């Protein structure tokens, strides 16, 4: 079930009413309702996927309990390894089997030998990368004695499958989300209103910004040889907006929906395109994944408390795995390597944590220096996104070759006249401008529509909400599946 579908717009109010009016007296029944709702939500794609999530939950629930029963380190380690093997085994099979089989066969062909490894027709279960990491966080935290295991199987299963964040995050830590299932939730008017605002903004980002950019991006990337360098450059920039609108839009809807049910999820995006360097970008982009890798991989590998060579190795491991997490394609790995290369100089010079505050704090506009830093960071990111978006490395290189030639300096009026239907491109430019402005003004807040009640009278606020709803209905692009569902 997609957040932007009619099914979800019927599903959500029904669950909301049952949650607050029918099951509100008993927290266990409330959790059971959330579990059933989450399984309906997930099974809507394909009910067969449910068996995997149930299996994964069952394994980690039991391993969690077993970990608390044993004190011997070797037994605990064995249990942890079992959890990791099962979870990563499932992920590896469903997501990476064909990639490894094909790469292996390609490697043989380099030596003039042909190897016939048939690839399997495997359907990738939606959201498997997200919930696998979430359940892993539970067993690792128990192993590290940072969390006590839960005896409540319903609340654990509900934690793993919590529908707002099940298929595309944020990847929650058990330490943050699980206790919320065990505590009584009370309805908060302010939180629920703010949740709805965040959902509204998420829908705007997804349906208006991302889906409209996708119209151009899909065409430009699939016909890159037909367009001028300047058009290809704009195609890259539009993809940067598309992926941000798509993914952060999903996170906004997920966080907003959770707030309707009295839950607080971690922030996943914090206006990343206003970052002044790559270090800051990675503290603001897909925060739940980058902190997951930091906590469960980078720090156990020694983090920055090791020698120079190992430090560099750790950085590359984190970024390459982060790329590989997105999918079984060399393009994602190169995307990871590029980000590691961007990050490394800052890290080695110990300048990666220079910008921990909000850019232009207390000011309306950034300084020239900040503006240049923002544009530079955005350009580097966009360059890497081209690999991320391309179907293959050769396609990405062809695309980049198309950008960096004399046609880069042509004005792409004709290309966009041809790509655009009517005045569509004009509307998109206006929406992108408004989008960047609103996000800039609100960059200190939780999300772009938060805290409006402090500055804006109710009648104007409602006018803004209606305006956004009308824009969503009128100008939404052709519906595209959320990009991150494939991960």
């Amino acid at each position, binding site marked *: 079930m997609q957040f932007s579908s*009619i099914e979800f*717009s*019927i599903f959500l109010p029904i669950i909301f009413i049952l949650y*607050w009016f029918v099951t509100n007296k008993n927290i266990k029944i409330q959790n059971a309702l959330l579990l059933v709702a989450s399984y309906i939500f997930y099974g809507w794609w394909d009910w067969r996927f449910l068996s995997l999530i149930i299996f994964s939950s069952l394994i980690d629930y039991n391993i969690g309990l077993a970990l608390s029963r044993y004190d011997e380190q070797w037994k605990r380690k064995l249990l942890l390894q079992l959890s990791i093997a099962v979870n990563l085994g499932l992920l590896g099979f469903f997501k990476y089997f064909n990639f490894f089989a094909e790469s292996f066969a390609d490697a043989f062909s380099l030596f003039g030998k042909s190897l016939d490894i048939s690839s399997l027709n495997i359907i990738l279960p939606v959201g498997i990368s997200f919930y696998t990491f979430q359940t892993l966080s539970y067993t690792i935290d128990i192993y590290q004695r940072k969390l006590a295991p839960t005896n409540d199987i319903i609340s654990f299963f509900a934690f793993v499958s919590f529908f707002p964040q099940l298929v595309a995050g944020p990847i929650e830590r058990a330490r943050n989300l699980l206790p919320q299932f065990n505590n009584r939730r009370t*309805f908060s*008017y302010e939180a*629920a*209103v703010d949740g709805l605002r965040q959902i509204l903004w998420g829908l705007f980002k997804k349906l208006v910004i991302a889906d409209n950019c996708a119209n151009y991006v899909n*065409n430009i990337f*699939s*016909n890159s*040889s*037909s367009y001028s360098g300047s058009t290809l450059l704009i195609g890259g920039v539009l993809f940067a907006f598309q992926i941000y609108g798509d993914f952060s839009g999903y996170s906004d809807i997920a966080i907003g929906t959770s707030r309707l049910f009295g839950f607080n999820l971690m922030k996943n995006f914090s206006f990343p395109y206003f970052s002044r360097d790559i270090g800051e970008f990675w503290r603001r982009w897909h925060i739940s994944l980058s902190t997951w890798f930091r906590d469960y991989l980078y720090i156990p590998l020694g983090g920055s408390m090791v020698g120079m060579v190992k430090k560099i190795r750790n950085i590359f491991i984190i970024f390459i795995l982060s790329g590989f997490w997105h999918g079984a394609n060399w393009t994602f790995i190169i995307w990871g390597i590029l980000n590691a290369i961007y990050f490394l100089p800052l890290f080695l010079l110990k300048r990666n944590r220079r910008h921990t505050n909000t850019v232009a704090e207390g000011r309306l506009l950034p300084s020239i220096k900040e503006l240049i830093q923002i544009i530079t960071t955005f350009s580097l990111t966009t360059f890497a996104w081209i690999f991320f978006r391309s179907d293959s490395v050769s396609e990405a290189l062809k695309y980049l070759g198309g950008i960096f030639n004399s046609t880069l300096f042509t004005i792409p009026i*004709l290309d966009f*006249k*041809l790509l*655009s*239907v*009517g*005045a569509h491109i004009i509307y998109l430019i206006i929406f992108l401008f408004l989008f960047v402005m609103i996000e800039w003004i609100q960059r200190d807040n939780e999300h772009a529509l938060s805290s409006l009640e402090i500055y804006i009278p109710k009648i104007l606020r*409602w006018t803004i*909400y*209606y305006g956004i*709803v009308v824009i969503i*209905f*009128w100008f*939404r692009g052709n519906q595209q599946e959320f990009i991150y569902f494939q991960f």
Partner: protein
Amino acid sequence: MFKYLINLILFVLPFVLYLLLEIYIDPFDILRNETRPALVLLKKHISYKMNNQLYKLQKFSIDPSEAIILGDSRAARLSSEYYSSLSGLKTANMAYGGGSLLEIIDTFWYIAKYDSLKQVVIALNLGLYNQEKNINRVPEAIEIKNSLISYVTSTYCIKSTALIGWSLLSSSKIQLNRPNLNRDEFWEYQLNVTANNDYRNYVYPKNMARELKAISNFCIDRDIDLVFLIPPTHVDLQAKIQYYNLIQEEIAFKNDLAYLGDVYDFDYPNSITENSLNYVDPYHFNDSIARNIIHELVTSDSGFARVTHFKRTDSAKIN
């Protein structure tokens, strides 16, 4: 909670009112057959352009025809009225702009349920006979048609209602999808981008060929005339088949059709396809050529078309 729900209801109220307006206007005649003349015209002008699959499928289900024309925007240029006047068969043009073979197949099976068919014309070019061309908007249109909730919440119904409402209030004519480029620019675009999309990753449509075979068998069993039309494209576009090294694929495509039904092939170098004045762009012939095509199809009076007549014994040759 009470305050929250009251605010929510107040907020949603205008949308409920708009929903009632949608039901009143009913831009695609899903709820009732439109009889108000002003609205009939506006719907034909606005709703049709918003979603031609939904509009045409609904029209057909209200008033089924004996002959249908299936295909993409090229076939959409063939006038059903002219076809009807020559053939004497009530005809519906069920071709869609930007259509695909998948849409043709799904539309055929949807229409076949009405049991009214005597003649079917399927217009196909190599670009459509391609596994990679897999856009299919027909299931969405059928879903919208079959579900009131899907209908009233669809972007097509929402937009059409607003435009029809605005047109009624302001008495002004709404312009949709006006072209924003000149003929030469569009000609180049069609040759460089659209043709690239059609031919770049050509894959023989094995499954779709099987579906066409099923359609052919269905037509034989029910004594329905099945005619394949290969519309004339400009020679500039024909040259792209060679450019993308697809000559053999085109031969296979035309052979396949010959095993399924009568074939009228206009797509080869001839005085129609060599003259750019006959074209709006390399894909689309003009109205006068459209009339010639219909004339040849209906009267079997071969002028430009290379005609291959189908023999039932041929049908066994495609699997």
